[in-house]
């Protein structure tokens, strides 16, 4: 029995986990991260850094067509090439899969049709990279090219090419094109009645293009599988248990047959929450009987991993002259590539989540197109919603002559507000972020010519999920923690801080390891801003479990009740005078004797914490427009976000800054560009333009701490919310600088010039 108090393990009847308001000794400090030296010396091993004796190199053949029936694949010439050890096609994977497992299999290796430019159709393992590459050229694929569609609105039109018949879920509105596969509707009140109360109602159309997570490390793995059907997989992933589950399903073996070890991960942002190449490498390893290394090129990452959805949106908001929002409604159409599950329900649910609205309605459509299967990207679905909604709010403020922060404060959701997606909010921190933004010097700083300021709010849910942690004590009293969530952004440091806090020992005495799938219970993926929340909660609970055991040893030794022993400063102390007079027993002393006093000591946590609090942010940005070229420069940026409790403030700031930077890229320059032929035009960092160092200013941060009741220290997830406001904030700033609203992303220079021109023409 890991924990003796059942209600402590899960939410239980009382979900109020928040029990430590400080003061803290470790939490809130900024020590060096435990893996810092590994990361600055090149010693850290990422996905592509693994090698094995006898290793083969693999390469994947990909469809050059956006939509084509695969009539024939002849691999015989490739197989005959010297050095080629295995060739696989769809026939080498499991049959009879259903649901999302089938979708994922279909995505990683095409079946009857190639569904997008870059779709995998076969793979080769050979004794060198060059032979593998040469072998691809020898595989003959006969395609029947089909009409394609890559645009979300076009894909919904009558007559659009059908990606897959029968993919739609039941319950869709009548008359939908078969490419529309899911539908969401939610809200409350009577929006028409609400609009009737408004002094001004604005309805606008918005569009955003698909972007890519843009992690710098391409997908990479090293697979081994013996004739006994047992295998090992090393890969870069946000969630190795999920990789294990999916590989087992796609290969038709049991989960326990595959041990997955997560490498250091070179960025994910949601894009490494699923599989792309791992089952292919495993299939090649199984067929060849040799270790197989498979690394995506950057071009493959863009063409065939999971970018985000593009969106077409209509938003309508009513406001009174005093700034009161009376009603809001929105329609959000997202394409998620050639498969279902574009995150349109999150777009819909997040859209108006910042506001206290009596009348609100949102609809979402999930649309299939000939593009790669979308994957999660940092608060999936939410940033585009904020772009549309916060743009309309800004325009209403402008037209009514109202201050954008005051208006947002007036309408802000707070504890007790009925959320636009249904439930009533518990304690949340939106108002606090708005107040901090209003008080920030940035908000009142003067602006120059051709400069504009934008503000916007954003919302994301956050997530708990299955979590297992083991905290093992060494004979010398130092601590080894095994967690199951890959460290993407410094989470080892926050885990060690929380354990140090609980155990009262030095931060340096704690080593945090990311365990493989065979060494720890199941862990949900590092996504949904859950790591510091869920693994953190698990570390705290595991430390408390260990502490109880340490206390019991001291109590035994002293011959008193464990209740009469308390733990502080890394030692057991008699609790009060009645407990007796004993010298404190340090963790070091107890551990030195643990073998002889009852055996090894470890703390555990295995449960699904369900108290991830929602999170809000407010961003301020100043932009300068070159009116002659349409080029935008970001001059100043401030992120204000509720972190609940910042465990390692530097890494919290880092999440704020990183989300803002990605959002700026999405707003200004990043986009998937498809040609008439349905092929991706810009599959590289040259023309897929993520922000470079010289594109950005310093990014100021303000950490607001409104504790989350669902975590012992009040921690909220912080990783995702930071990308929600920037699209809107930058668009508002540019619109204010340009004097014309920009409603389509990215705001590339030519698009801004066209908007300026249209405005001049309109006036003339």
């Amino acid at each position, binding site marked *: 029995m890991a924990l003796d108090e059942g209600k402590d393990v899960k939410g239980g009847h009382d979900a109020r986990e928040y029990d430590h308001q400080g003061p803290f000794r470790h939490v809130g400090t*900024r020590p*060096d*991260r435990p*893996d*810092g*030296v*590994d*990361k*600055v*010396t*090149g*010693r*850290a*091993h*990422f996905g*592509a*850094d693994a*090698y094995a004796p006898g290793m083969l190199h693999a390469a994947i053949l990909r469809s050059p067509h956006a939509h084509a029936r695969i009539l024939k694949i002849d691999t015989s010439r490739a197989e005959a090439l010297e050095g080629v050890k295995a060739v696989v096609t769809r026939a080498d994977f499991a049959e009879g899969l259903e649901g999302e497992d089938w979708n994922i299999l279909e995505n990683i290796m095409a079946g009857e049709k190639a569904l997008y430019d870059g779709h995998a159709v076969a793979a080769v393992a050979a004794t*060198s990279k*060059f032979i593998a590459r040469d072998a691809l050229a020898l595989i003959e694929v006969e395609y029947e090219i089909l009409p394609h569609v890559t645009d979300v609105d076009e894909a919904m039109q009558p007559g659009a090419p059908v990606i897959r018949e029968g993919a739609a879920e039941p319950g869709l509105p009548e008359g939908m094109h078969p490419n529309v596969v899911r539908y969401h509707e939610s809200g409350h009140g009577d929006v028409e009645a609400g609009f009737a109360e408004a002094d001004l109602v604005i309805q606008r159309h918005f569009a955003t293009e698909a972007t890519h*997570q*843009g*992690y*710098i*490390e*391409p997908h990479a793995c090293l697979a081994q599988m013996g004739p006994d059907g047992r295998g090992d997989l090393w890969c870069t992933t946000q969630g190795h248990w999920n990789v294990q589950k999916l590989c087992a399903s796609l290969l038709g073996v049991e989960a326990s047959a595959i041990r997955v070890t997560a490498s*250091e*991960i*070179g*960025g*994910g*942002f949601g894009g490494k929450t699923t599989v792309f190449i791992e089952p292919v490498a495993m299939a090649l390893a199984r067929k060849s009987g040799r270790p197989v290394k498979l*690394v995506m*090129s*950057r071009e493959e990452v863009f063409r065939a991993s999971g970018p985000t959805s593009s969106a077409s949106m209509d938003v309508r908001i009513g406001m009174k002259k005093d700034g009161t929002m009376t009603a809001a409604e929105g329609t959000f159409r997202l394409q998620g590539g050639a498969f279902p599950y574009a995150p349109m329900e999150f777009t819909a649910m997040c859209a108006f989540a910042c506001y206290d609205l009596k009348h609100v309605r949102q609809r979402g459509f999930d649309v299939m197109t000939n593009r790669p299967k979308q994957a999660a990207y940092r608060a999936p679905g939410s940033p585009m919603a904020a772009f549309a909604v916060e743009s309309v709010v800004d325009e209403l403020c402008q037209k009514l002559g109202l201050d954008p922060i005051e208006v947002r404060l007036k309408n802000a959701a707070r504890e007790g507000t009925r959320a636009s997606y249904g439930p009533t909010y518990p304690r949340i921190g939106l108002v606090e972020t708005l107040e901090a933004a209003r008080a920030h010097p940035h908000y009142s700083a003067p602006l120059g010519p051709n400069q504009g300021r934008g503000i916007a709010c954003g919302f994301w849910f956050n997530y708990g999920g299955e979590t297992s942690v083991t905290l093992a004590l060494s004979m010398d009293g130092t601590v080894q923690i095994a967690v199951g969530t890959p460290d*993407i*952004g*410094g989470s080892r440091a926050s885990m060690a801080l929380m354990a140090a806090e609980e155990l009262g020992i030095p931060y340096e005495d704690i080593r945090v390891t990311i365990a493989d799938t065979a060494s720890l219970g199941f862990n949900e993926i590092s996504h949904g801003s859950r790591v510091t929340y869920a693994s953190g909660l698990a570390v705290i609970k595991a430390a408390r479990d260990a502490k109880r055991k340490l206390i019991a040893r001291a109590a035994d030794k002293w011959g008193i009740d464990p209740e009469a022993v308390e733990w502080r400063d890394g030692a057991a102390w008699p609790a009060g005078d009645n407990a007796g007079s004993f010298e404190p027993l340090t963790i070091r002393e107890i551990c030195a004797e643990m073998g002889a006093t009852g055996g090894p000591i470890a703390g555990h946590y295995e449960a699904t914490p369900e108290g991830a609090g929602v999170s809000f942010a407010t961003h301020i940005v100043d932009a300068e427009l070159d009116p002659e070229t349409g080029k935008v420069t970001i001059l100043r940026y401030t992120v204000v976000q509720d972190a609940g409790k910042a465990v*390692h403030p*530097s*890494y919290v*700031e*880092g*999440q704020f*800054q*990183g989300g*803002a*930077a*990605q959002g700026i890229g999405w707003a200004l320059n990043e986009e998937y560009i498809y040609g008439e032929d349905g092929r991706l035009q810009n599959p*590289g*960092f*040259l023309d897929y333009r*993520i*922000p*470079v*160092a*010289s594109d*950005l200013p*310093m*990014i100021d941060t303000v950490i607001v701490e409104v504790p989350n009741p669902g975590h012992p220290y009040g921690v909220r997830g912080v990783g995702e919310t930071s990308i929600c406001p920037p699209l809107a904030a930058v668009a508002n700033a540019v619109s204010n600088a340009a004097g014309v609203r920009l409603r389509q992303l990215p705001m590339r220079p030519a698009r801004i010039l066209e908007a300026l021109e249209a405005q001049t023409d309109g006036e003339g």
Partner: protein
Amino acid sequence: MSMVHVSARVNGDPVEFLCDSRETLLDVLRDRLALTGAKEGCGTGDCGACSVIFNGRLVASCLVLGAEAEGAEIETIEGMADGEKLHPLQQKIIAHAALQCGICTPGILIAAKALLAKNPDPDEETIRYWLAGNLCRCTGYDKIIRAIQDAAAEMREEA
């Protein structure tokens, strides 16, 4: 296959290897010399994760052939620390939390070292433009710039 024999110096040590004429210096460092600190983020010179110093110049090792390394002096991230003593840039990158995932970090460090060798007191704009070829997707660059400035200040004091 046409293998090329190459002798060079990496981090001061003599090395010898045979490589395929098509292999890049990055391939050679990683696959033949087991120096995996330089990373391949793009293979086309757009991301800087494979940065090394080649005959005194900062280069993308994915844009140099292994065969071109004959007689070359190459510095990689593995040679940056002096034994157990980290270079000030390495210390400051850790101290400022100027990394999240760490995949771009070796390239950033090598590029920053090359910058400080040329300009011991670079201003923010100089650092930003110098590092424009080193993509970082996690940090928004803010803490990286601060760490480099801090390291530069410390190195100026020590000098």
